[in-house]
C-alpha cells in the first residue's frame, strides 16, 4: 500500500469537506493511504507573503519539518497550499541562509527541517503516481456522455517548476478520459478564478468568475471539474452573486475531480460529500447515479 503524508489545509476541514472526503475515498480504492500530518498549521494562502516573507517561509517550513519526520512525500489537495509548500521547500534548499533563519525559529517547536521533503498536488498523484490503466481498472460506472470542463486554475501549474507545460497541459483531460467522461475543450482552463479578490476586489473577481462560467456554457460542458477549494468556492458559492451583479442566469455545477472519480468508481455519493453543493449536479449525472 502506497502511503503519503496528507496536508488537508484549512479549507478542507469544513468549507471543502466534500473534497476531503472524496480524496480519502478515491485514493483508498486505489490502494493509497493519506495519513494526515499531525498538528499542521495554515499554509498562509497568499496573505503571509503580503506581510512578511520570512514569517511566511517559517510557517510553511513548520509543516515541512513535521512531514519530514514521517519520511513520506507530502500531498496537498489545495492549489494554494501546494504552491506555498512546494516553493518554500525549493527556496530553503537553494538558500542555506534562509534555511538557517527558519530553523532557528523552528527550534522553539522542537523541529528542524533538513530539506528532504517532496511535495505533490493531489491531482499529480492521480496523473503521475497512478497509471491511467490503474484508474480504468477501478471504474464500474464510466461517466459516458458526461462533458466535463477541466479547470486547472492557477497554482497547480504556475509558477513553472521545471520544464513542464504551463500553457496547454493535458493531464487533467487524461484523468477525465480514464473515468469515461468527455473532457471538453475549455479555452479558459488556465485562467484565474479571482482567488481572495472575491473579498478584497469583489467586482473584479465576480467578472472573472462570470467569464469562466460563460466559457463552460459555450464549451457545452455539463459540469466544471476543479482541483482547488478556492476555485470551487468562487465558481460555485458566488454564482448567485455573479447573477445579481451581471444579470446572468448561471446555474452551473462545479465538482471536485475526486467526486467525479468517486462516482465512476461506484462509491456512494454521500461518501463523496455530494449534497453539500449550492448547485446540484444530480440532473447532469443522473444516468450514472442510477445505474
Amino acid at each position, binding site marked *: 500500500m502506497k502511503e503519503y503524508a496528507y496536508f488537508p489545509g484549512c479549507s478542507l476541514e469544513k468549507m471543502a*469537506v466534500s473534497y476531503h472526503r472524496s480524496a480519502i475515498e478515491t485514493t483508498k480504492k486505489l490502494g493509497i493511504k493519506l495519513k494526515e500530518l499531525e498538528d499542521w498549521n495554515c499554509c498562509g494562502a497568499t*496573505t503571509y507573503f503580503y506581510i512578511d*516573507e520570512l514569517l511566511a517561509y517559517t510557517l510553511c517550513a513548520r509543516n515541512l519539518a513535521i512531514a519530514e519526520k514521517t519520511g513520506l512525500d507530502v500531498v496537498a489537495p489545495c492549489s494554494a497550499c501546494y504552491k506555498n509548500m512546494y516553493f518554500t521547500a525549493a527556496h530553503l534548499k537553494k538558500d542555506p541562509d534562509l534555511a538557517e533563519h527558519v530553523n532557528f525559529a523552528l*527550534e522553539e517547536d522542537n523541529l528542524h527541517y533538513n530539506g528532504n521533503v517532496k511535495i505533490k498536488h493531489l491531482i499529480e498523484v492521480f496523473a503521475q503516481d497512478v497509471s491511467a490503466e490503474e484508474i480504468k481498472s477501478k471504474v464500474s460506472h464510466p461517466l459516458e456522455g458526461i462533458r466535463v470542463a477541466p479547470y486547472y486554475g492557477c*497554482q497547480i501549474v504556475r509558477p513553472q517548476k521545471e520544464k513542464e507545460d504551463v500553457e496547454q497541459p493535458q493531464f487533467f483531460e487524461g484523468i477525465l478520459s480514464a473515468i469515461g467522461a468527455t473532457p471538453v475543450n475549455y479555452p479558459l482552463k488556465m485562467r484565474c478564478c479571482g482567488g481572495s479578490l472575491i473579498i478584497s476586489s469583489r467586482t473584479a473577481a465576480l467578472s472573472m468568475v462570470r467569464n469562466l462560467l460563460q466559457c463552460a456554457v459555450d464549451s457545452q460542458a455539463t459540469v466544471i471539474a476543479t482541483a482547488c477549494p478556492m476555485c470551487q468556492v468562487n465558481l460555485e458559492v458566488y454564482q448567485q452573486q455573479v447573477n445579481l451583479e451581471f444579470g446572468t442566469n448561471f446555474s452551473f455545477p462545479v465538482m471536485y475531480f475526486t467526486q467525479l472519480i468517486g462516482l465512476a468508481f461506484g462509491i456512494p455519493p454521500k461518501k463523496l460529500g455530494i449534497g*453539500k453543493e449550492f448547485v446540484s449536479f444530480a440532473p447532469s449525472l443522473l444516468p450514472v447515479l442510477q445505474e
Partner: protein
Amino acid sequence: MSDTITFGQEISNLLYATEGEPLRTCIQCGTCSGTCPVAGYMDYTPRQIIALINQGKKDQVLDSNTFWYCASCYYCTVRCPQEINITELMYALKRYSIWQNHYKEGLIGPTFSEAFVKMIVRGGRSYEPILAPAYIFSFGLRELLQEVTGATELLLKGRLPIIPARIKRLDSFKRMIGRIIPMGGLE
C-alpha cells in the same frame, strides 16, 4: 552625496528569496498586461507599474490599487520574455506599502491581510467567521446582504465552522513566530 537608494532598489531588496531578472531589464512589451485577468480594473497595468518604479515614481505607485488587485495567478510571470517575476514584485509592493502604512484609501486588501495573519498567529489555522469584520464594513448594503445570504447557506450545508480550529502546540508555535517578528505588534 547621500547614499540613499532608489525606490526601484528598495523594491528589489524586498524580493529576498525570489529568483528572477531585475526590473530594469523590462522591455515594456506589455505581455504581462495583456495576460493579466485583472488589468482592466487596475489604476495602472503591470507594464505601467514597472515603468513607474523604474522612473522612481514612488507615490504614484503606492497610491495605486494595482498590486492590491493582483490575484497571484502567476500568468504574467510564466509569460514574461525577460523572466521578471512580476507576481513576486506585486507581493513586494504589498509588503512595502503595509510597512510604510502608505496605501490607497478604501482598499480591503491591507486590512484583510493583517486580520488574516493575526488570526493565524493566535490559533494556527484559518477560521472564516473571524475574518468577516475585516471587510464586511467596507461593503455596500447590497453586497453585505449577498455575503450574509451566502454565509447562511454555507452554514446550513455544513460548510462553515462553528468552533475555531486551533493547533495543539500553540505555545511553542507562538514562541516560534516570536523569533521572526515581535509579537507585540500582532497580538
